[in-house]
């Protein structure tokens, strides 16, 4: 466990500075056992909080209800993805999270949940971030990807399970393009798992190309999609 892990207590007590809290949240995206520990420590902290119960002034209730009346509720996460992929994706995230909880409770090291293809944990973490923005984009080879960004986690993620399958000789490759210069952001060897990466700097673009198996140093084909994460 990294040193960051020991910050779980301070994090659960809201005793980290904003920067440290964001750093720790990023760490939790990669560390299922840390997320579970924070959930449990939060629960303990919440009991301390609840033990301070004090009747509020009676007029508060009417004020709260009146204010809520004027406030629209946020849509559920990823609501604007009104296709079949939405349900599947949310279910897969759900299964992943539940499996992580069970595994951690049982004291098992979470490496991978058993069986079928699902979003990798870092990708699911971005889709689950409280401040997530996501959008669907069509690719020129007839597929669809969903892009999510979270400023809080400082991460972006692509869900690529709706990309057409490639022959064994080919692979999807991600590129980060800063000031016109592409650099590889990794291969999508498992399109069902998707891919998470740090948010590129403002103005940078992210592209996906189809490359020979093993990937290329520089793109050798036209991108099937080019994204500006800052506009997601």
């Amino acid at each position, binding site marked *: 466990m990294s040193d960051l892990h020991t910050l779980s207590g301070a994090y659960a007590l809201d*005793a980290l500075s904003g920067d440290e809290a964001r750093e720790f949240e990023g760490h939790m995206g990669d560390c299922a056992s840390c997320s579970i520990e924070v959930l449990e420590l939060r629960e*303990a*902290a*919440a009991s301390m909080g609840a033990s*301070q119960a004090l009747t509020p002034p009676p007029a*508060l209730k009417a004020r*709260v209800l009146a204010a809520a009346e004027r406030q629209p509720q946020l849509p559920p996460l990823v609501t604007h993805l009104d296709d079949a992929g939405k349900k599947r994706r949310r279910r897969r995230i759900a299964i992943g999270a539940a499996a992580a909880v069970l595994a951690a409770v049982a004291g098992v090291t979470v490496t991978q949940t058993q069986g079928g293809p699902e979003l990798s944990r870092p990708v699911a973490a971005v889709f689950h971030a409280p401040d997530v923005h996501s959008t669907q984009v069509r690719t020129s080879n007839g597929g669809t990807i969903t892009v999510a960004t979270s400023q809080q986690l400082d991460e972006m993620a692509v869900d690529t399970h709706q990309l057409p399958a490639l022959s064994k000789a080919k692979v999807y490759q991600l590129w980060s393009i800063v000031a016109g210069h592409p650099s590889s952001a990794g291969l999508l060897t498992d399109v069902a798992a998707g891919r998470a990466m740090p948010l590129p700097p403002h103005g940078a673009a992210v592209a996906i190309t189809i490359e020979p198996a093993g990937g290329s140093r520089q793109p050798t084909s036209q991108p099937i999609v080019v994204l500006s994460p800052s506009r997601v």
Partner: protein
Amino acid sequence: MASEPGLRLVHGQGSGGDIDALLTRVARGDSEAFGQLYDEVAAAVYGLARRVVRDPERAEDVAQEVFLEVWRKAPRFDRRLGKAKTWIMTITHRRAVDAVRRNEADKRHDQHAVPDEPDREDPGEAVILAEEHGEVRDCLDTLTELQMESVRLAYFNGYTYPEVATLLDRPLATIKTRMRDGLIRLRDCLQGA
């Protein structure tokens, strides 16, 4: 809002299942459920806000912000990631601490020796006994002195862990581990209770 409540027992604080069910209805825009949810958790929310920010009017403002956030974000609440009440108390604590930190210069005067409840500033007001109260107090008693002080200064006074380290004159690494150990011990005790 100057009316000061006397010492009363709050009922219904332990009904966590109801709170989860109510929040599910709130997520669908059910304002009647929202009113019931308010009745279930308002004392916990207001009490914690009051304990952290101390000033009654600011505590009310914090409580109102909390409930609006709960209303707005209910559709995004994920039950797999914890209990509804924990979620609400987490929002409450974060907002209360934010309020304190925004205003720390005039609000956080020398509280090195943290008074136990009720607060020294409000001798006339008694803390209402929630069902959790005795249990939490007993469990806090299982913590070491340093664990308890670290947890309390952070949670009830809104200090960051470097501030707690300074106040208690201990190394940063010690304080952050004591916070973690302390909460783990509290968790284990509450789960066993």
